[in-house]
């Protein structure tokens, strides 16, 4: 009975293949529970911070430096508390973060267009590629004097420094993203019959996304650094007091507690934006591709 034979063979094959699939499908290790996460990634940095503050307190108690140069951890804490209470910290944060955000968005637009142009034109890439890469290693604080001479003590000078700092990273990130796209994937797009636009939209852009995101993350870090350098040096009453300027006031008053407070706030804001915006975005993109657990 050939019909029955075929049916039996088909069922056999289904069972055989399902068994293979069950045996061969990669098993991902289970996600660690909250206790394990605490022990593995939360506890160590807490221990480090406590140790650091302890050593600081020890240095203060033994008068390693005069107290105006090395205030106690508690002095700094009170200064931080007061700076937050009288509103200076919030004002400075809102001025700096809005500048940082605007500067980053402008860099994003310029860097993306530049990256695309360099990717489309081999000639343009050969011509300016080395300089764009070179600019990445130039500390953007070097642009501050030039920006002040061109634009005066103005927001324009600050934004110029931020753009010069962040645009190369973003453009290079996009280029690196495109370079990493396996040629085979583009071939797949052609075999499936996608046109140029379809291939760019459905294959090239998603494939380049991880590299582009890494570029954006680095671009933000560079924006923030450049912004602090620019604010520290560029002072005018019209500009308001950003975090960089708050730091400068501390230096002019010889108030080490305010200096440390400012450094602390600058660090916290930079890290917070990285952790709240870029890290989740990157994790999501990498996880869907199985590149991270």
């Amino acid at each position, binding site marked *: 009975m050939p019909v029955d034979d075929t049916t039996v063979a088909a069922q056999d094959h289904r069972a055989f293949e399902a068994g293979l699939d069950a045996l061969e499908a990669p098993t991902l290790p289970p996600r660690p529970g909250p206790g394990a996460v605490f022990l593995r990634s939360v506890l160590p940095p807490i221990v480090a911070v406590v140790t650091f503050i302890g050593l600081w307190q020890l240095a203060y108690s033994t008068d390693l430096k005069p107290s105006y140069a090395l205030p106690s951890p508690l002095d700094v804490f009170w200064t931080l508390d007061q700076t937050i209470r009288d509103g200076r910290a919030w004002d400075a944060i809102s001025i700096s973060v809005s500048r940082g955000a605007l500067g980053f968005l402008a860099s994003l637009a310029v860097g993306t267009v530049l990256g695309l142009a360099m990717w489309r034109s081999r000639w343009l890439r050969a011509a300016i590629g080395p300089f764009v890469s070179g600019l990445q290693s130039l500390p953007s604080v070097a642009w501050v004097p030039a920006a002040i001479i061109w634009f005066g003590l103005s927001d324009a000078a600050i934004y110029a420094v931020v753009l010069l700092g962040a645009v190369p990273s973003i453009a290079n990130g996009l280029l690196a993203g495109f370079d990493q796209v396996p040629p085979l994937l583009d071939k797949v797009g052609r075999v499936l019959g996608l046109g140029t636009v379809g291939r760019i939209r459905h294959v090239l852009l998603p494939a380049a996304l991880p590299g582009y995101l890494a570029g954006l993350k680095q671009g933000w870090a560079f924006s923030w650094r450049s912004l602090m350098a620019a604010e520290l040096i560029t002072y005018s009453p019209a500009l308001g007091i950003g975090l960089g300027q708050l730091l400068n006031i501390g230096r002019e008053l010889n108030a080490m507690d305010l200096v440390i407070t400012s450094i602390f706030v600058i660090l916290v804001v930079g890290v917070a934006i990285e952790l709240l915006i870029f890290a989740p975005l990157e994790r999501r993109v990498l996880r869907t591709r*199985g590149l991270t657990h």
Partner: protein
Amino acid sequence: MLDRIDFDVAPGEFVCLLGASGCGKSTLLSLIAGLGTPTSGSIEVTVGRPALMFQEPALLPWLTAAGNVELALKARRVGRRERRTEAERLLTLVNLTGQGRKRVHELSGGMRQRVALARALAQDSRLLLMDEPFAALDAITRDALHEELIRLWSEQGLSVVFVTHNVREAVRLGQRVLLMSSRPGRIVREWRVEMTQPRAIESPGVSALATEITHHLRAEISRHAR
């Protein structure tokens, strides 16, 4: 690289192209797929755009298994709702029922290659080109996929051009086996495989013909020694 290649594939026929490295069999397949144009001569594909499978699954890692199949449907401008049901149907056809939501990295090598097969079927072409599609798989998985492919081929009435350097695989699958020479790539000999499908790769008939073809393949390769 290729020279005086002349062969036809009849509707519903399964043809295996066999040859050593450097014989240009992959190039030939790319030309048939329309990924390049021959320097002289012409290729006539009467069934529209052929589907092509590679040695790597070449799935898009940011899409799910179903998403990969749906992209082929999207390229054919199939409507959104129809895409979903059609992708599910094709995944069932390759024995991946209910696995559509899995990401590429959650699938085994054999499962990935079956998703790639479902994606190729989604192109709804009468001609399926396969470029050593099972070469990277282990023997057991390859065996399962041979069975799968023969079943689909006979059910769907496809024409298949299957490139391989594995003689037994060629005899296991094809109705015709074409042996290619290297540098330049030419078709030097042709065998008709008279055994009926499904046939087992370890059957005496497959073994006997594979031994004969291997003899010719070795002779062809030895010509390049100096």
